[in-house]
């Protein structure tokens, strides 16, 4: 062997130090690389910063679960004064927009075509029924069952109007010894925005944590850079942590941004502490990132990864977390499934921290559940990501 060869063999020396299982400098190099990529990739910025703002605005303004100005018909078949005063009571509420009619056929067509959500019939014999001592219905309420929530609201509210009207007629005479005066805690105005905006933060975090992570790891497989990195002494643990740290930071920044928007733009109070909010978010990112990592380890393909992230991350967070639809109202089997969705714990914690305050008795079990799901995801992801190309 000539001398050059020996020199090259000696060149392996710096590598010897590097053969440890975990090396801080390699990790820093990987984190640096990932951060530079994230900053330079316009789609990352779009997903991490533009999308949350759009979503928050959507949930704050466009989506409203509050029922206001529901269009109904009021069919006045009776010419009596009392009947007319009841019709006027319907017209006078701020929650209903009334289309008056004399014949129920006029409004029935409009319910079919969707122009009205239902109608109330004040029958011809209204005065006789009112005077009668027999417990028989005063009015008939017909609702559009294809929109169950609104239908419920219309029928309940119509009953309320009739009762209030009845109470008003016998004014002066106390009709009941006990008077109910409802108070809504935490969201006194019952504005859905206040519950939706904190929930939307959970959706944003799912997108960043799961979708973005799944995409960026899959991209490395697609572009062949993963193969190159795997052929260096870097360990799987370094590669995975190097991937996650920047997106963890990105997720936290997005949380802070969303919280600031919620408080300063949408007037959602933050009654709990910032520390609690950040702790909750940080712990939620464990299952979110873990899920993203698992998806990308299984698919290695950006298109599939984004589809799976959509169906296993985004949609369940959207539908099954109690963000839009109350979990208690779901059928029992579905309710059971919601326990597996990390966003369920996060949404309820977020609503508590924003609207109620630091209630650690609520947070602690939620934190434990999120951490447990996260550890589960990571354990599988680590097992599925080998330090080679076998799959």
């Amino acid at each position, binding site marked *: *062997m000539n001398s050059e060869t020996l020199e090259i063999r000696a060149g392996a020396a710096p590598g010897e130090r590097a053969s440890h299982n975990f090396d801080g400098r390699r990790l820093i190099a990987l984190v640096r690389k990932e951060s530079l990529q994230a900053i330079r990739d316009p789609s990352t910025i779009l997903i991490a910063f533009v999308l949350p703002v759009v979503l928050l605005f959507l949930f704050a303004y466009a989506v409203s679960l509050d029922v206001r100005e529901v269009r109904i018909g009021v069919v006045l078949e009776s010419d009596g004064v009392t009947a007319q005063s009841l019709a006027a009571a319907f017209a006078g509420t701020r929650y209903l927009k009334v289309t008056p009619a004399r014949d129920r056929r006029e409004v029935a067509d409009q319910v079919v075509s969707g122009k009205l959500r239902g109608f109330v019939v004040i029958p011809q014999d209204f005065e006789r029924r009112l005077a009668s001592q027999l417990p028989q219905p005063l009015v008939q309420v017909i609702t559009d069952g294809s929109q169950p929530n609104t239908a419920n609201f219309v029928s309940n509210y119509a009953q309320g109007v009739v009762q209030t009207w009845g109470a008003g007629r016998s004014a002066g005479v106390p009709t009941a010894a006990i008077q109910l005066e409802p108070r809504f805690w935490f969201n006194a105005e019952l504005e859905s925005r206040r519950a939706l905006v904190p929930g939307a933060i959970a959706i944003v975090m799912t997108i960043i944590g799961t979708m973005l992570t799944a995409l960026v790891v899959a991209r490395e497989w697609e572009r062949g850079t993963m193969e190159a990195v795997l052929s260096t002494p870097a360990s799987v643990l370094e590669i995975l942590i190097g991937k996650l740290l920047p997106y963890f930071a990105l997720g936290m920044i997005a949380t802070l941004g969303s919280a600031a928007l919620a408080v300063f733009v949408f007037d959602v109070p933050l009654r709990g502490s910032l520390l609690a909010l950040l702790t909750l978010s940080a712990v939620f990112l464990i299952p979110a990132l873990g899920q993203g990592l698992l998806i990308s380890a299984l698919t290695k393909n950006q298109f599939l990864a984004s589809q799976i992230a959509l169906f296993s991350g985004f949609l369940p967070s959207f539908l099954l977390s109690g963000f839009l639809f109350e979990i208690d109202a779901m059928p029992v089997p579905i309710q059971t499934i919601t326990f597996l969705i990390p966003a369920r714990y996060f949404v309820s914690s977020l609503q508590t921290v924003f609207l109620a305050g630091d209630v650690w008795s609520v947070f602690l079990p939620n934190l434990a559940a999120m951490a447990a799901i996260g550890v589960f995801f990571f354990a599988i992801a680590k097992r599925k990501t080998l330090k080679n190309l076998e799959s």
Partner: protein
Amino acid sequence: MSTHPTTDGGGTQDQDVAVVVESVVKHFGEVEALRGFSADIRYGRLTGLVGPDGAGKTTLMRIMTGLLVPNGGRVTLAGFDVVEDNDAIHIASGYMPQRFGLYEDLSVMENMRLYAQLRGMDADQNTDIFRSLLDFTRLGPFTTRLAGKLSGGMKQKLGLACALMAKPRVLLLDEPSVGVDPVSRQDLWRMVQALTDDGMAVVWSTAYLDEAERCESVLLLNEGKLEFDGPPQELTDRIKQRSFRLTGVSDERRAVLSQALDLGTVGDGVIQGDAVRVVLRADAGRAEIGALADEVGAILEPVQPRFEDAFIDLLGGGPGGTSALAERMHAVELDSDIAVSCRDLTKCFGDFTATDKVSFEVQKGEIFGLLGPNGAGKSTTFKMLCGLLKPTEGEAHVVGHDLRRATGAAKSQLGYMAQKFSLYGLLSVRQNLEFSAGVYGLEGASKSQRIDEMIETFELQQYLSTSPDSLPLGYKQRLALACALMHRPPVLFLDEPTSGVDPITRREFWTHINGLVRKGVTVMVTTHFMDEAEYCDRVAMMYRARLIALDTPDALKRVSRSDAHPDPTMEDAFIHLVESADLDDEARANAKVAA
């Protein structure tokens, strides 16, 4: 664990041996990628890992670099077992995967620093190593440029620089020359030469058989088996005095090739410019080919055997010379002698000009080749000519139809075979045929008759209900050709028709094309196999969006003849043309500065 393998890690090994492969077996499900062979790779040498796509080259590369685990046998690299001492493998070896493994969002310097740090090198303390690597790869002026903005050749050099960090003892390059123009490829050979002179073991995998001749030692793989292990010269020596050239047949060369290939004593034959090149079978004697030469009035002369000749011979020779497809085609009649023409054809994407004022005319019954490095604009030009892209300026005609106005009429006159065959994997072979017949407007009896004809010609009966994805490569190509020819177009466009195809399938393909051309079909083809350009009647060379040369292959080669290259190949001609184009550009730039 000791990290000094040569003294105590490897045990019985020879000091010179860098990689030991011992009856290695690897399968992916049903597919056997490596079928159990042994070989040694030595330090201080360039070893070519040669074979067609799917031969098992990448699988072996990945096993050597510790990224795949063999199912059987054992591989050691620098004395370390690739499975048991996996960590040590990553230090002892430098690996450049296909597509170079670069981060496109990172700059040249950032990519280099990343790989340096991953390989345990402190970038700040090793500025001299960085400087020497930048000098070596001539990337010095581009350190801040993003890797995604580099040309193919520069990416390849950066990939090499990253793989060379921390001085590996074994350098593994997986298809480093794919997507790289011949000029950059030349540069890479120079760099690799310097590395092996320093004692490094370099493994270079390639599907280009002409590259094998430049390696000191070759491992020739085919279908997972090792067909040959040794210096390439040794293989070509086996077919000494069996390679011949028939010259003086220029007008009749396709007919002569076809006749020659049908002779029992001829194992292989290709067209080389104006000549026909044949390889005789072992112990065949030159009587038959001599008789043919006399008959057609050709001069028969012996030539140096090439590595590809030997490879085909090793596999038992190429296909015969008669194309069943062409036999069935009717002779093409056209009103004019010009099948395809374009004038000042220009395409801009934003402020980037992909094709810049390209003009040429293609005669009826001609094979016209478009050659050029990736990004030279040949695909853009090609797509405008078959009506897939609208030109920004200039005009183009196919069989007299203006492509800007009568795109539909022009399209019905051409058959198009896209890269990678573009067949529908979810449809069966028959459904693919029916779809292409339908899409070209064939109906009823003529449709089913044409489909049956194609099935018979290409012998597709046994595969009719299978998916094209599971077809053998050769049949896949036949099917793609059948689909493109269903409506008997007078002009056929072939976009990189033979990339990723083994040499025997390529020969079969050219037999069909030659047959079609003899019936008067005009063929437009892009290719990056330089030797395939020899099949063309005329070749247009594109470089930086411009047409830098247009002539017959022989004339192009003649221009580049020099003392250093007395018998230049197409590749030499290409390098020469590109370099003179660069010099012209420089001179013009200097003149501008001077003025």
